[in-house]
C-alpha cells in the first residue's frame, strides 16, 4: 500500500541532464556531467562514489546552494534553476534541511540556540519556537542537553543536534553530506538508524552522500553511484 502511495505521488526530486562545470584557467572541470535522476517522495537515497566523483556537488545543486550550468533540478515541483536567489533562500528554509559531515554547529550558541536558528530565519513566532526546538531535540534524544554548547558534546551528539536543526522547520527533503564521515562506526550506525526513523515517521525524502557502501546498503532504499561526475548506476539498495 505504502509503495503504491509512493509511486502515485510526484517525485520529490528530479534531475534532468544536470551538469555543473567550473572553469579554472583555461581548463573546464565537469564536476557533474549530464546526470538525470529521479528520487520518489519518501525514499532514502544514498549517493555513493569516491572522492571527487561529484556527489557533494550534486547534493549542493539539490540543496539550492549552487546552480547547474545546464539542465534542470526540480525539487518539490519547483525548478531550482529558474529561481531567484531570494526564492532559493526560501526553498532552503522551507523545503530542505541539511546535515553536514563536520556538523557546522555555531560554537558560541547553545543547542537550543543552534536548533532555533532556522526558526529565526523563517520568522517563526517566538511563542512557538521553544516548543518546536524541544520537539526536535526530543526527536534526537538530546532534550536534556538543551543548554549545552556544542563543544560539551560528543561527535555523535553534535551530529544529532545538527539533525534536530535540519528537522526543526519540518522540511520535506533532508540532505545529508557524509553525516557519518567524522564518526566512529557505532555512532555512525546510530545516526543512520535515526535518519531511517525520521524517514519512516514524518515521511521524509532523504538524500545522503556517503562513501560507506555497507552502511548505505543497510539503511538506504536505493543507491546511486557516481564516478567522474557521471551517474554510473542507480537502483534499489537491497
Amino acid at each position, binding site marked *: 500500500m505504502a509503495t503504491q502511495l509512493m509511486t502515485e505521488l510526484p517525485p520529490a526530486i528530479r534531475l534532468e541532464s544536470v551538469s555543473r562545470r567550473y572553469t579554472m584557467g583555461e581548463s573546464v572541470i565537469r564536476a557533474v556531467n549530464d546526470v538525470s535522476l529521479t528520487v520518489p517522495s519518501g525514499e532514502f537515497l544514498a549517493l555513493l562514489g569516491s572522492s571527487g566523483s561529484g556527489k557533494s556537488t550534486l547534493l549542493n545543486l539539490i540543496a539550492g546552494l549552487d546552480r547547474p550550468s545546464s539542465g534542470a533540478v526540480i525539487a518539490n515541483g519547483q525548478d531550482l534553476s529558474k529561481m531567484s536567489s531570494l526564492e532559493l533562500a526560501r526553498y532552503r528554509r522551507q523545503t530542505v534541511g541539511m546535515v553536514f559531515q563536520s556538523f557546522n554547529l555555531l560554537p558560541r550558541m547553545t543547542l537550543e540556540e543552534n536548533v532555533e*536558528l532556522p526558526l529565526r530565519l523563517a520568522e517563526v513566532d517566538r511563542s512557538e519556537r521553544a516548543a518546536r526546538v524541544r520537539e526536535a531535540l526530543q526527536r534526537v534524544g538530546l532534550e536534556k542537553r538543551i543548554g549545552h554548547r556544542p563543544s560539551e558534546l560528543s561527535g555523535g551528539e553534535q551530529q544529532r543536534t545538527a539533525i534536530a536543526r535540519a528537522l526543526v522547520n519540518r522540511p520535506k527533503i533532508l540532505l545529508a553530506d557524509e553525516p557519518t564521515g567524522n564518526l566512529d562506526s557505532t555512532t555512525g550506525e546510530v545516526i543512520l538508524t535515526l535518519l531511517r526513523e525520521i524517514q519512516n515517521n514524518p515521511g521524509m525524502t532523504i538524500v545522503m552522500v556517503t562513501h560507506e557502501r555497507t552502511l548505505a546498503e543497510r539503511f538506504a532504499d536505493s543507491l546511486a553511484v557516481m564516478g567522474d561526475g557521471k551517474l554510473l548506476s542507480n537502483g534499489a539498495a537491497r
Partner: protein
Amino acid sequence: MKLRDLSDLAFRNLREAVLRNSLTTLGVAVGVASLVAMLSLGVGLQQLATSRLAKSGLFDSIFVTPKTNLRGPGGGPPATRTPDAKARPLDADARAEISRMPNVVEVYPQIRFFTEVRYDGKPYATMVAGMPESSKASGAFDGMQGRFFSSPNADEAILQAEFAKELNLQTSSLIGKDLVLRYAERQSLGAPAGNSTGSSGGFSVVPKEKHFQIIGVVETEPASGFGGFGSGRLLIPLPIAETLRAAQVNDLRDILRDSSSDKPTYSSLTVRVRKPSMVEETEKKLKDLGFGVFSLLDVSKSLLTFFRVLDLLLLIFSSLALAVATLGIINTLVMAILERRREIGVLKALGAADGDVKQLFFVEAGVMGLVGGLLGVGFGWLIGRVLNFATEIYLHRQNLPGVQIFSVSWALVLFAMGFAIIVSLAAGLYPASRAARLDPVQALRYE
C-alpha cells in the same frame, strides 16, 4: 529575519570579539567626541558673543533721530541732509507713540551733558550720562566695585574708573562718599511780546547743583559706543538725568528751528525691541513715522555668517577623526567576514537570504555607531565641562567674570548621534555587501 532576532545575533557577534569591537567603538566615540567638542565650542563662542552683544543692547536697539539731523550719532551714517516734508520733532509725544509700537520694550533718550563735579572741595569737568535701568543687564557693570543704582530715582552716581582715579587713586575709598554736580538747567522763556507766529521764546540757562552719593566704580565704559556722543564718565539713573532738564547740545538747534512747541525735544532716542530679528520691521515702521533710523542689523548678520562659517570649518576638521573611525569599522567588519566565513555559509545553507546577511552586518555597524555615538557625546560633553571649568578658574584669577565657552545643546547631541550612526552604516555598506555575496558552497568549505 525580524529586527529583534537580527539585533540579538548582532549583539552576540559583537560580544564574541569584544576587545576588537570595543576598540573600534572607542574609535567612533573619539571621533564623535571631537565633533561634539568642536561644534559645542563653535556654538558656545557664538552664544557667548551674541549674548554679550545682545546684553549690550547693540543688536536689539534702533537709534532714532529727527530727520533734520545733519549727522547720525557717533560718526554713523548721515541722516537726511535736507529738511523733509514728513520730518517731525522727536519729542515726548513721539517717544510715547514709539513706546506703544508692537515689540518695543523700551524707549529712552540719550542724555549726556557737560558738568562740573565738586568733590573734596575741588572742581572736575566731566560728561554725565543717564543710564536706563535695563543697562544693569548689559554686562557692562559685571565685576564693578560697589553696586548698581538701588532704584531709578535714587540720587546715586557710578564713576567710570579713569574719572574715579582723578578724584582719588584709591577708587574703593570713594564709595559711599558724596559729590556735587553743577550743571546748567534749561528753563523755557515765554513768547516775546508782539510775536504773533506762536514761536517759542527760547530758553534761559540757570546754574544748578545736586548732591549724589557715589555707590560704585566701573572699569568699562557703559555709556560709550553705539548711540553715544562720547563717553559718560559719571553715570546717574536716566529718570534723574531727565528731571534735571540739563541743557544739551540739541537745545541750541531747538532755538534756531522754528518750533511752535514748548516741549523739549530729544536729539535721539534709543528704541529696544524684544529680539534682534524684530529690528528690521520696527525700523521700517519708524521710517514711515518720519524719523531717521540706524541700527547694527547688518553687523549682526555678518557676525552670524562668520559663526556659520566657523561652525562649518570646525565640523569639517572634527569629521576627520570620525572618518578615521569609519575606516576602523570597515576593517573590523572585513576581519569579521574572514573569521565568520563558515558561519555565513551555514546561515545561507539554513535559508538566510543575501539580504539577511547584509542586514546582520549593517546592524553590527549600526550598533557600533550607536554605542560609539553615545560614548562620544558623553566624552565631548565631559571635555566641554572640563574646559568650561578651567576657563572659569583662569578668568576668576584674572578678576574677570566667568564665561561658558562650550555649549552642548540637545540638537547637537541628536545631530552627533545621527551623524555617527549614518557614518557607521555607510562604513558597513561595503563589508555587508561583501558578506552577502559570499558563495555558500565556498564558505562551507572554508576552514
